């Protein structure tokens, strides 16, 4: 029987069967979210701690809602506001939290590998909610779920990931997952934002967006960090959006039934033109809805038995 391990640290550790298990489980969780009473007693008596070292209202809320819909007790700790975390090492914080005997810790941290460090130390399950530019596995799973909802399968699809690949944990987890599930992946962006060895991951690098989306089934636009401009990774927002932003004109190169996705929050008019944002191609809100279902599925699979 297919099962998950103690933790969910990254897509890297998952087999295609485990990925399918999560996606299938999320289907029934989504059904719970559609009910009038959006709550089941599955995780009653279990404690989930959201430990966020980086601000992220949207991901934290999604985990919080997921836990609550499964009747878990959910506690939020964010590094900025909490004395549990201030000045403490991650190790010490982990030990302190362990003393509260949580069943699951959801960790968002700026350092790659921080969830691995915590997972090695603590008996509780750990879910990686984003570690540096390394992995963001729940985002990749919810993206896969959303694509599968529309296209039935990931197998054989051509998916373009465009933007700042170098600094994107979303890109890394998605590349890994999509390749494992039989999709073809192209990455696109200025060379300054695409790692030199990206093709060794099994993707194709196509620098110009028009060419990259030729015949694409799915286009994932990544959020651009405005502060990267200072590091000269790109010359100006204006030039970035002109060459690497998606608009109706460029979209002609993609398939007619192309899906446009974005992990959010979107810089309106930078990565995606306003007209496309409000078009039926764009399924960003589905991603948000499905995020809760995926996180419920993971909580259930990790600590529900």
């Amino acid at each position, binding site marked *: 029987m297919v099962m998950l391990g103690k933790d969910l640290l990254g897509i890297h550790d998952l087999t295609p069967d485990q990925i399918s298990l999560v996606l299938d489980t999320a289907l029934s969780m989504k059904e719970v979210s559609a009910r009038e009473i959006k709550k089941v007693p599955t995780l009653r008596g279990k404690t989930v701690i959201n430990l966020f070292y980086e601000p992220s209202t949207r991901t934290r809320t999604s985990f919080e809602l997921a836990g609550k819909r499964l009747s878990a007790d959910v506690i939020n700790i964010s590094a900025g506001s909490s004395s549990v975390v201030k000045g403490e090492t991650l190790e010490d914080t982990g030990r302190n939290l362990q003393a509260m005997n949580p069943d699951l810790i959801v960790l968002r941290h700026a350092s790659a590998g921080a969830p691995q460090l915590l997972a090695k130390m603590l008996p509780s399950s750990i879910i990686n909610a984003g570690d540096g530019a390394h992995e963001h596995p729940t985002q990749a799973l919810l993206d896969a779920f959303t694509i599968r909802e529309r296209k039935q399968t990931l197998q054989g699809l051509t998916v373009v990931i465009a933007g700042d690949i170098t600094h994107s944990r979303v890109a890394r987890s998605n590349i890994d997952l999509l390749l494992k599930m039989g999709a073809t992946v192209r990455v696109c962006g200025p060379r300054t934002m695409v790692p030199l060895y*990206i093709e*060794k991951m099994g993707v194709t690098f196509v620098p110009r967006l028009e060419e990259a989306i030729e015949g694409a089934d799915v286009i994932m636009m990544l959020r651009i960090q405005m502060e990267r401009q200072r590091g000269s990774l790109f010359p100006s927002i204006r030039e970035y959006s002109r060459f690497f932003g998606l608009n109706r004109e460029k979209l002609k190169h993609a398939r007619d039934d192309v899906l446009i996705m974005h992990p959010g929050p979107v810089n309106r008019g930078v990565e995606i033109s306003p007209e496309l944002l409000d078009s039926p191609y764009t399924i960003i809100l589905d991603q948000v809805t499905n995020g809760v279902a995926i996180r419920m599925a993971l909580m259930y699979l990790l600590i529900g038995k």
Partner: protein
Amino acid sequence: MALLIRNGRVIDPASSTDEVLDLLVDDGTIREIGKDIVAGEGAVADEIDASGLVVAPGLIDIHTHLREPGEEYKETIQTGSLAAAAGGFTSIACMANTKPVNDNAAVTKFIVETAAREACVNVLPVAAITKGLKGEHLAEIGELKETGAVALSDDGKTIASAQVMRLGLEYAKTFSMPVMCHCQDEELSAGGVMNEGIPSTYLGMRGIPPLSEEIIVARDIAISEWVGHPVHIAHVSTAGSVRILREAKARGVRVTAETAPHYFTLTDEAVAGFSTSTKMYPPLRSREDVEAIKEGLRDGTLDVIASDHAPHSTLEKEVEFDKAAFGIIGLETSLALSLELVRDSVLTLSQLLGKMTIQPARVLGLDKGSLRAGADADITIIDPEFEYTVEAHSLQSKSKNTPFLGRQLKGRAVYTIVGGKAAFSLNP
């Protein structure tokens, strides 16, 4: 009191000696080397039967960090010297990045005096080229040399300004001081925590490109040629650096270079588990780089193997990878890891020992590193077949930050003799 070392395989790379001989030591000096030495009645207090063992000049490590003064919780001159002796080293050169920096005679004097009192091996201070390792103003190099500094290096940092580097080399030349270069363009490597390569692409961690090393290796060789004073390139880690050095040597440039055992033993794939014991500067590189380092050792482009022993406590190492300090300890694993090169037919045993004895001695201009009558009795006796597992509790170093914990090693020093006295013996 005399010491007679009998029937060992005496390997002295400096004189191309490799045969079974006896060696007589007295009064801190090698008296005689030959077959079947007969010492006068009652003159020999001690005898070592070295049958089946290798008798080599005492190993010399030209690149260590001893952390005293300032960070004695990581390592002291005493504990560092114990680690050195256990690893077969009779002389170690210690870098200037202590707290305070060894950029003035008072610190050099402190190191020399502490070592004389507490160290069981020869400790040779390397002083800073610039004050505070800031790359701006020259340290008082004349006085540093007078006080006992054997070489100069801003190790840990690169002198970013080519002009300051030129002046530093010119001033060092005035006092005939060897200069060792830590090569890292700090803009190209800014924020980097591991090699820029395939693993860093997967791990999403900021890479340190080989380019950041190579551009400074090339620059420092160019400045060295211009000034007419040789440089020694520290911890070479990339194929590109090896190529640049090889080309320079072929042109007759007087440049020497070292690498460290981890650069020919591990690749950047070792970082995948986020173990901070795989984090050092320069970082572990790719498989191709590892092969190029071995080729550089084989063809003589790389003259010296140094440990770059860099102790850190759990405070600096049991943290997130990107927040961890750079550096690993190496004094107690260098010899065994290097002996792998002999088993892999990269080097002969004599070539390997040359890179750990006479060649580092020449870089520093030391009258050490060879076995001949009249030389200092710094001798390392090695059992190349001795097998053991690296375990934290058996390491002499105060710090245990090594990626080789748990590794099965083959070959180790069984006696380390400094000035005729045993600084270490495996079975005391």
